[in-house]
């Protein structure tokens, strides 16, 4: 449902942009080739306009920026929809100056490490979850994003008030389905890789999952609940996960299941499965020893040193 909804919303932007007199680079492509001269004219006009607009704060937002925000930011931030993983950005441009925001967007980790007090404050509000550095971010894009926040904050009803999630009560069946998806026993509809290939989760069978990514046992708690986690899973924004999940977004039912499984894990009281590494190593050693015993039995007639055996047995 979320996926389909998102699709519709993305399509609607065309209309919105026209209403707002946004720069329409994408719609240009819709013109048939025979109207090429028109396109050139149009582009020319737009080019002039944009060059005028660079100096002053813009009140238009390009469709790429919108898409970028939807893809990279919306899974943690709303504009006027309340807190998810990160703070609600409505009025952020009033709270902080544009420069600071652009700087933070470009390098969140750097700003936090510089000891900036406001950055530390929002870090503590986010339970210590540092905003990931966005893939493909640069100064120009950061500026555009700040502009987007400003424009969207000014709207009475922003486009990023937050996605609508099914908030029905989570059942045991959801937990079961979520675990099955997490472990890869059930495949994701759109071909995303199973979570367990990189992440561990307490209470799961076997070794609890992979160790490439962080342990997700406390993820539910860290992201402050269902809504934020659901939003996060809609399009995972981290630099590692984004390319992996591009074109393989999760269905809303799948997200519901995963959220249920992760909530269950967080509430189960089992700590993060640090012992899984140890048990993995020990099981490996055990298995190797077992195989050696097996091979030794299988090739018991193999050639051994003749002379040494003879001397030692005498």
């Amino acid at each position, binding site marked *: 449902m979320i996926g389909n909804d998102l699709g519709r919303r993305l399509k609607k932007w065309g209309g919105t942009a026209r209403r707002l007199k946004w720069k329409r680079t994408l719609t240009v492509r819709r013109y048939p080739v025979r109207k090429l001269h028109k396109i050139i004219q149009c582009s020319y006009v737009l080019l002039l306009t944009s060059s005028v607009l660079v100096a002053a704060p813009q009140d238009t937002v390009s469709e790429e920026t919108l898409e970028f925000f939807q893809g990279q930011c919306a899974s943690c931030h709303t504009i006027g929809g309340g807190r998810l993983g990160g703070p609600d950005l409505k009025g952020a441009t009033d709270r902080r100056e544009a420069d600071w925001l652009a700087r933070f967007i470009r390098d969140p980790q750097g700003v936090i490490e510089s000891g900036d007090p406001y950055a530390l404050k929002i870090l503590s509000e986010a339970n210590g979850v540092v905003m990931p550095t966005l893939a493909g971010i640069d100064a120009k894009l950061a500026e555009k994003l700040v502009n987007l926040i400003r424009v969207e904050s000014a709207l009475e009803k922003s486009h990023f008030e937050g996605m609508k999630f099914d908030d029905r009560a989570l059942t045991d069946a959801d937990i079961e389905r979520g675990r099955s998806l997490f472990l890869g026993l059930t495949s994701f509809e759109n071909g995303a890789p199973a979570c367990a290939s990189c992440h561990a989760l307490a209470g799961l069978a076997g070794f609890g999952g992979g160790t490439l990514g962080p342990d997700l046992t406390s993820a539910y708690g860290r992201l402050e609940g269902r809504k934020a986690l659901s939003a996060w899973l809609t399009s995972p924004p981290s630099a590692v996960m984004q390319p992996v999940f591009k074109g393989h977004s999760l269905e809303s039912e799948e997200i519901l299941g995963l959220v249920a499984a992760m909530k269950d894990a967080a509430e189960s009281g089992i700590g993060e499965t640090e012992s899984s590494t140890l048990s993995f190593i020990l099981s490996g050693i055990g298995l190797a020893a077992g195989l050696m015993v097996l091979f030794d039995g299988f090739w018991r007639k*193999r*050639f051994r*040193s*003749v*002379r*040494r055996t*003879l*001397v030692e047995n*005498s």
Partner: protein
Amino acid sequence: MVFHLDKCIGCHTCSVACKNVWTDREGTDYMWWNNVETKPGTGYPTKWEDQDSYKGGWVTDGEDLELRSTSKSKIIPNIFHNPAQPSMDDYYEPWTYKYEDLFNAPEGDDQPTARPVSMVTGEHIDVEAGPNWDDDLSGSEVYAKNDVNMDGLNQEQRAQMMAIERLAFFYLPRICNHCLNPSCVAACPSGALYKRGEDGIVLLNQDRCRAWRSCIPACPYKKTYFNWSTGKSEKCILCFPRLETGQAPACFHSCVGRIRYISNLLYDADKIRELALLPDDQLVEAQREMILDPHDPAVIEAAKKNGVHDGIIRTAQKSPVYKFLKEWKLALPLHVEYRTFPMLFYVPPLLPVMSSTQGDVVRNEVDELFGDIEKARAPIEYLGKMFTGGNLGKLRYALRKQLAVRIWRRFVTVGDISEDKAKAALAEADCTPEAADEIYRLSALATFDDRFVIPPFQREMAIEMLEDPHDHRSITGFGSRMAPKRS
């Protein structure tokens, strides 16, 4: 080839001659193309006769002849490693001494010593084994006791062989047997090993050897060796450069006991497969059957038809090997049950019991001067396991005939045995006085030319047996074996 074991004194001169001529290079330092073993003993490499470990030679179920070491299916899993190879320790780690320490050591209270260093690693080693480590029954409790040929003996016989004052041993010099059915050649995946058409010498082409090491487990006598420096296998070449110039191989030439005889034989190679399928105890007879009578006109005619040169037929007729092997039936192949049909034959040692001590009293065990072969110190079963594939009849025949010749010669030279008795002994041993004299002459008095009847090799004609030189006339250059290279 015949080695007369009753004459071997175990001096290792043959081994040293061979080592000096062929294997004093790096990588060959552990090889002894010729070695002399003490029997009972485990030999070199240790327990080479134990084919359960080393998987040498052929096995047959009566219908098919197969290599024990490899087959088409076994070659895939073992393609990079032949598991049944003797390790360096099974041969021995070759060593030398740091002689310069004797001169360069600082002044001190102790005599300087030359410590042994490995010729492979250059590090100090404690010498634990050598190519004749169990020489003269040294370490017999460890080595001689584990002689594979004693497997068939009962406890009493074993005890007898090991008993103090009754110890029996003899020497067994070994070189490559240049077998008629060589398993090393059959096992070689790169076709580097071949049996030379004109003289039957088994050679290993150094250019074609690809270090698969299949020959090493395959040879039941462990007479192919891997050169760890060049990465190629090497083996006895029967000193073919010497043979081609009419000289006996170095080990034959240098033999102090004059135990070695070499000449050529005519044989029927088409029978090899059929005869190799026979049971163990029939193999000695089978091999003798394969060797043809060089005086038989039909054989001579067939040989000539096959391009065998007159000179080769002439030496085959004068061959001492033929006499020992077929006329007198004294010579026996070593471990014929490996089914490679070795072309080196051994005259088994007599080892009669002369006397024994009981307390301080030395007393004759038998009434007769030469005793009885049944009471010989080495149990006949032991020799049978080595030389006749368990066929004790063949072995008794050879021993009895040797004994009869001694009795006969005692009658001729000393005369304290009556003529009747001597003739009766000869008759019992299927021997005539003339044959006995000839055996005596070839065993005891044989000159260089009697022992070494070397055929004219005539390489240029030998080549014609295999290929037509005219085919190559236009395609070979002169002077170099390989195409000249530009640097």
